[in-house]
């Protein structure tokens, strides 16, 4: 276990700046998720921590020690790859036992440890098979078992669940979370799935174009997104973002008029989450529009309204029914949060 520190870490490919002066401290035992769309530099950041990618500038410290120039094998890390990276010519048992073999652990101890680890991820019966004879989920478990067969200082996981089907992903997510609780090893986890990030992380680093735009707990990232990018990236369905202006203490946009505590200004984007809106009588509603679509999700209905080309989504009760194109009104629930952003800079405007 160890604290990981990135100090002004930078990665360039020729003229292209993949990661820009990254500063990040991952606490001992923490589960940190790097979240962002593809190409944002999250995987590059992780690969630099792993030693698979050279660091162009800056320092990488493990427990205070500079490791920039250490080979991956000397960093005492374990990694789970998106495509598993199994050894196809070896059996499951040999795959899992390979890190131990490289460390000169004798055959007997190795067999015992492999068995024990395989049980932990429910692979006990498959040890003699080869990776090609396993399903995707089982392959992922082999990769996971190979990572936890010894106790490394740091776990790195590069989108480990993205090749699994939706149902299995949820199960494995819970298993990963439990595993981290059990082992307590510092973990860096890369994903583009905000749901994974929210559920797994102690802290989430939202990345965009090679920079971290917000680093905070999942709760804070959800309730206080730092800018428009984070606001639109976190949450499902995503936060409603409405272009408008503030005048006379009210946010004004087509079909929207809401009181806000902010000084008057133009070019403002208001954000409000679908779950913070409720359906009301159209006559007196602060937000109104025509019903564009109704989507039943089981426990609720997503109601999308359209007004002059802009749409707003709200989470309504499961039994809500209305005809398409009828007028409908929305209001923030009592105690609901609205968020204001500057349209040009994208930055959050605090009241």
């Amino acid at each position, binding site marked *: 276990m160890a604290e990981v520190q990135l100090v002004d870490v930078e990665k360039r490919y020729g003229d292209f700046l993949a990661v820009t002066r990254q500063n990040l401290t991952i606490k001992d035992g923490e589960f940190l998720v790097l979240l962002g769309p593809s190409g944002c530099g999250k995987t590059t950041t992780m690969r630099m921590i792993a030693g698979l990618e050279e660091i162009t500038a800056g320092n990488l410290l493990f427990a205070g020690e500079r490791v920039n120039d250490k*080979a991956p*094998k000397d960093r005492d890390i374990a990694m789970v790859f998106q495509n598993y990276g199994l050894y196809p010519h070896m059996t499951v048992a040999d795959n899992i036992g390979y890190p131990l073999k490289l460390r000169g652990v004798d055959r007997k101890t190795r067999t015992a440890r492999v068995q024990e680890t395989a049980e932990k991820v429910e692979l006990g019966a498959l040890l003699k098979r080869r990776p090609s004879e396993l399903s995707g989920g089982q392959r992922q478990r082999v990769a996971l078992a190979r990572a936890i067969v010894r106790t490394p200082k740091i776990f*790195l996981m590069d989108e480990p669940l993205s090749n699994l089907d939706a149902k299995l992903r949820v199960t494995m997510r819970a298993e990963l979370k439990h595993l981290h609780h059990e082992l307590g090893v510092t973990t860096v986890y890369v994903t583009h799935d905000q749901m994974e990030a929210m559920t797994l992380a102690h802290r989430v680093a939202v990345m965009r174009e090679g920079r971290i735009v917000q680093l905070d707990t999942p709760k804070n990232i959800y309730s206080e997104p730092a800018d428009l990018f984070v606001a639109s990236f976190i949450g499902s369905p995503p936060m409603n973002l409405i272009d408008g202006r503030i005048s006379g203490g009210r946010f004004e946009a087509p079909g929207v008029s809401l009181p806000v505590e902010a000084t008057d200004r133009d070019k403002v984007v208001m954000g409000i989450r679908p779950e913070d809106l409720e359906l009301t009588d159209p006559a007196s509603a602060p937000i109104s529009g025509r019903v564009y679509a109704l989507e039943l999700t089981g426990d609720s209905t997503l109601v999308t309204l359209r007004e002059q080309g802009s749409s707003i989504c709200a989470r309504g009760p499961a039994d809500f029914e209305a005809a398409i194109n009828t007028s409908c009104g929305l209001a923030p629930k009592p105690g609901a949060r609205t968020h204001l952003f500057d349209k040009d800079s994208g930055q959050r405007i605090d009241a």
Partner: protein
Amino acid sequence: MNRKRIYWWGERAVLVLVSCIVLFPILWMFLTAFKRPKDAYSLSLDFSPTLSNFVTVFSDPWNLGDMVLNSAIVASVTVLIAVPCASLAAYSFSRFRVRGRKFLFFLILSTQFIPAVVIVLPFFLMFRTLGLLDTRIALIVVNLAIVTPFVIWMIKGFIDAIPTDSEEAAMIDGASRLRVIKDIVLPMAAPGILTSSIFCFILTWNEFLFALILTRRDAVTLPVGLVSFRTERGDLWELMSAAGVMITVPIFIMALLIQKHFTRGMTAGAVK
């Protein structure tokens, strides 16, 4: 439907015709190898087969046995040196992003553009100076020069096809680069490397021009030996055919081996 049938039969007919054109000389060679001299020029298939041609070519003055040995040694040693070197080179070209890599690779391939006839004389002079004319060493050196670039290119193709994930996983699991090559890359590239080895062997085994110029008596290889059946008494077709069979059979066997391994992929299951 009818049209489809016609196409089907047409396709088969063309295939059979082409196969016949390709296979007929080989069949004829095999037949001639078992004919007596008096039957060699007859087109009749009605002859009594004999093994005497094989006995003759292996005895004085032809001594085909020596040539088989020369060919076997030259081809084997060439493969044993070329393939390991080429594998490492191919791995480097495939994986390391070194400055000038593409140019270097082009240089290696460009050696294949030079017609052999152009460089045969320089080689002759070089080996004469070194006192290596008519030795197997000279043939091995020349064959290495010809074959290695080709094998590098071939093996690189196979290594390119191996996903890097497994290698990176091994490095993180604690393996050094050489260990990764030994434990991960070689087993996964094995079918490709084997195929390349057999190609390499065939190329060397059949190499004619350099062997003709650089050998005289001691290091003569099979393809060159064939020429010696053109004597003042005329072409000894039945003996030449027997020797031809001796050249062809090992290659046939290897071709069969290639077929078996060529189709088998080892990378299945490494990634999603």
